[in-house]
């Protein structure tokens, strides 16, 4: 089918696009290019029921349901990647400073749909809050992203970690804020406490580092 024009999300009629349908988009608008990329990504899959199109060749529109798209991506992540991801965290010989399979996996998925990935990671975090190994693994990964990439989920996870009873989870939360830096990290770290002496020393040092760095900054 050939699409010759596009109206934002207006739908003239609905037709399910089936597997192996070829869709050619001829309009050069940026919106179409965006949708073209989306369509190209999904042309290989077998179930297209979140994309509908009017097959009227004279004036056709495409409506892409973004909620369905994100939900679909989240379901895919949960079904196809959660087990593998958790096994990477549990079996990987994690080393600070060195790339890990778990963080590589998340990086790849973030390129495809960061909204779904944030939701996915958050669910794993909540479902495994009693499992320190998985929490620590997650926190190490989120610390490797820029704050804004995983905001606000990353921040929320790190804040929750700071009050976990496991001192290593606490430390992982501090590491995330250390990695992100900024005045907001400093504010948060200055408002927490820990019963662990070595974690407390680390916390003091990070606070001191951030105070020096942002002493004269307006950030």
């Amino acid at each position, binding site marked *: 089918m050939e699409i010759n024009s596009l109206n934002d999300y207006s739908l003239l009629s609905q037709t399910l696009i089936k597997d192996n349908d070829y869709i050619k988009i001829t309009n050069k608008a940026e919106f179409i290019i965006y949708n073209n990329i989306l369509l190209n990504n999904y042309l290989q899959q077998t179930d297209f029921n979140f994309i509908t199109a009017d097959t009227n060749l004279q004036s056709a529109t495409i409506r892409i349901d973004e909620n369905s798209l994100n939900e679909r991506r989240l379901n895919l992540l949960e079904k196809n990647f959660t087990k593998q991801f958790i096994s990477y965290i549990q079996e990987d010989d994690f080393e*600070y400073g060195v790339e890990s399979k778990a963080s590589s996996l998340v990086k790849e998925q973030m390129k495809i749909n960061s909204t779904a990935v944030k939701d996915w990671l958050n669910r794993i975090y909540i479902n495994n809050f009693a499992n320190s190994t998985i929490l620590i693994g997650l926190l190490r990964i989120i610390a490797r992203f820029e704050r804004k990439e995983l905001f606000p989920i990353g921040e929320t996870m790190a804040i929750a970690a700071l009050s976990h009873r496991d001192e290593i989870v606490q430390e992982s939360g501090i590491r995330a804020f250390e990695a992100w830096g900024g005045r907001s990290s400093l504010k948060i770290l200055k408002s927490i406490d820990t019963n662990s002496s070595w974690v407390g020393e680390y916390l003091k040092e990070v606070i001191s580092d951030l105070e020096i*760095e942002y002493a004269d900054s307006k950030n």
Partner: protein
Amino acid sequence: MLIRKINKTKWLQYDIINGADVSADALTNCIKTYNNSLSVWEIKDETDLEEAVLAIVAGQDYLEAIDVIILDERHFVKCQINQESTEGRTPVNDLKNIHKDLCNLDFWTLGMVAENIVESFKTDKVKRYTISKLKDILKKAIEQNRLQVGDLNENIQRKLA
């Protein structure tokens, strides 16, 4: 003195400072051998510690706080643990030759390495370098032309920018 990067949290799973045994995680993760060898960096004394840290951090993928342990080389000589100079994997050329491998390790000698590490914990020879300190070390090396920014992993370059 020999310097090695460790994961402090693996060693502190049990109270090794007060005599508890070393955790299996510490043995199997933190002093994991390759070809029965463990990588270490040799320095003359603690005033050169940042040289070893520079060698380590410059070759990493991410800038994250690390812990390094200072090991007494005499302990390894006494235990007859072989040491071999091998070229270090670091972009700092003048530090490639301070790298060594503790080699031909086995069940017993690896245990002796673990004992040496525990001793270092007891004598406060474990140092943590925060991201800020690591940045300072890297920037100083770049200013001294010992290291080019382009030699560092992209993730680290972004943090230094």
